[in-house]
């Protein structure tokens, strides 16, 4: 065996495979790089979407339709998210309306929480006293969530359906939720350590002190809204104002 022989071996090796294979291989490598870039970009999260959350029948989809298409329509329980963009103050914002059904809302929250800029938490002001436990539980889940705490987006609590005669005002709702969250954190948050959960559950608010929204890392705002116009002024003006602020 000589070196020269080896070289001819390599030539033979090359001639056995046509150039198409090489081209495909090159394309394949290029493709892998593209996929990698795609995934890296997706995992970092652009953080540009506004999430509309809340329990069933709070009015999320109705507000969403009003913002996107400016129309009042009868809505039904959403089974998946509605996405759309809205122009606010010269900027375009991505709005995602998440379903409120208890079976699926957690999955959708996990799916979209990474790209969140602000959360609009919609509450039915009329039925709240009856539903306060359910509302507070979802709000608790949002406030305690590790990913959301890391990004700490602004949380705007939209007290919807203010057109109703018996609707509670935002200050009453704030008190009710504060009180309920205080109870909830004793029943749910006191889990000190867990063997197999790598994420430590942190206490909501401050220790040895009744829960208040001002203790949170999040910026929490309460606004009132309705999808019905009164005196020619849109009931959703407060929502659009806040959309402008967070944009």
């Amino acid at each position, binding site marked *: 065996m000589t070196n020269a022989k080896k070289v001819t071996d390599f030539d033979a090796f090359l001639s056995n495979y046509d150039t198409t294979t090489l081209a495909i291989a090159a394309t394949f490598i290029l493709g892998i790089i593209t996929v990698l870039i795609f995934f890296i970009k997706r995992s970092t999260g652009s953080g540009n979407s506004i999430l509309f959350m809340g329990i069933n029948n709070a009015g999320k989809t109705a507000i969403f339709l009003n913002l996107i298409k400016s129309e009042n329509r009868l809505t039904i329980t959403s089974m998946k998210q509605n996405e759309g963009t809205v122009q606010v103050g010269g900027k375009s914002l991505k709005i995602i309306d998440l379903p409120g059904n*208890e*079976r699926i809302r957690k999955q959708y929250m996990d799916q979209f929480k990474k790209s969140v800029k602000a959360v609009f938490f919609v509450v039915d002001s009329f039925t709240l006293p009856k539903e306060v436990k359910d509302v507070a539980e979802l709000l608790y889940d949002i406030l305690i969530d590790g990913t959301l705490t890391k990004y700490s987006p602004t949380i705007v609590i939209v007290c919807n359906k203010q057109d109703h005669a018996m609707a509670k005002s935002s200050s009453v709702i704030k008190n009710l939720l504060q009180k309920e969250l205080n109870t909830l954190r004793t029943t*749910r948050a*006191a889990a*000190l350590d867990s063997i197999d*959960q790598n994420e430590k559950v942190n206490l909501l608010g401050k220790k040895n002190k009744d829960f208040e929204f001002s203790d949170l890392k999040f910026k929490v705002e309460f606004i009132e809204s309705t999808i019905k116009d009164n005196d020619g002024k849109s009931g959703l003006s407060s929502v659009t104002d806040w959309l402008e602020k967070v944009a």
Partner: protein
Amino acid sequence: MNYSFSFNFDSDFKDLLKRVEQDEKKKAPAKMKAFSQSNKAQKTVSSMIIKKNGVQVNNVAPVEKQRPNKLQEDEMNRNIEKMKLKKAHRNARGKPPGEKPKPSQSPVQVQEKVSRNKSRTVWPNEGKSAEAGLKLDYSGEKEDTSQVVLTKSEREIVGTAGGEIRDIGEDDDDYDVDISDEEINGTAETNTKKPTRGFFSSLTSLIGSKSLEEKDISPIIGKMKEHLISKNVAAETAEQLCGSVSKKLIGKVLGTFKTVQSTVKEALYEGCVQILSPKRRVDILRDALDARANKRPYAIVFCGVNGVGKSTNLAKIAFWLIENGLKVSIAACDTFRAGAVEQLRTHVRKLNALHPVDKGPETVNLFERGYGKDPAAIAMEAIAHARDTHYDVVLIDTAGRMQDNEPLMRALSKLIKVNQPDLVLFVGEALVGNDAVDQLMKFNQSLADFSNMENPRLIDGIVLTKFDTIDDKVGACISMTYTTGQPIIFVGTGQTYSDLKNLNATAVVNALLR
């Protein structure tokens, strides 16, 4: 340089190898000994018995073919003589001088003498007479907390169960479903025309977007169904689940960078997580606090088939409630099985010792009315008693019953109808396979049928017990939640009071599809 030069190593090697092989052949392998030649054959049962005089009698061995040689025998006989002499000497010294020594007394005679003097054994709790019967009756026994002996590990768990019940371990890694990937790939590959260009065809299938048809997914769905059944999901449930997944996928356009099997797996994963997610708020502590604010006890009924761990998990739940500052009353409504009340009393005594109170009523109270009474009446009394004595939670333990036993199911239905508890929990073991569906269906059906009500109370939640015994065969979770649509509220994972966990839907589904 000449690379072609080399040592003629091959011939040397072959020579050596041949020699070594021949050498080895000469040495025949050691023959196995027959059993009769072995040492073990010399030992028989009788030869191992040591007689009273200390001589081991070897020559009675029946297998023994050769007699021990004369010399050995002589020595043995001499030794025997010597020992006999020694013994006689000792006996003569120990006894009073007047008495004659009895050197010829055989061990058998001694044995007989002893047996003649043997008195009848009296077992401690032999129930023949009335007094003995009283001794056996523990039902009237008063609790004596000072007698409860607690081990160190038991002491350590106090104060650890505060707050929300913890989740079963969740591995955060992405769910990867490697079930029979090769098999699925195999079936997929036979459909493609160019098997030689493997990666090219897979590339087109990655990028090309086509809508799914039944023939694309049915082989994968079949594999998935088999996999689910192998993970202990009831066959009926697996069938329905896979049916709905395939119905959901037919006509769907395959996404970019997605294969058919990954799409099917994803859909199945989502479906399972959705089944396991509760459809309503489940927070027993919150509701119990609410009931306390309304000055009424929060009643929970435990039902299930025999031996699934109703009482055990009731005690664990009681411990968890106590740790969270609630006062618990346990109603012993199992008036049928022997020892059921005593079992609960033992738990109550232990729980009280773990959580002693300085004054006032104890943290756990047992409400019992003995055996053979009507369970519904006892439960009602227990709830009323708890209301009067300010207990926050009433845990009602019922007798285990098979789902087909109509009279017992009627009794359970009556208990629930009369007392209207806040929560009806079905206790089921995680080991169950196809029977899970049958049990839950029949429990629910009989609660509905025998109540004679418009809106009967059905099962509100499930306690899954013996979860530590099943490894990754977690199918029972899916079967049970799919059958009733009710959430799994507690999972029992061991023997101690702190072995009570929450179900983590994603962790369970990861284990299921692994």
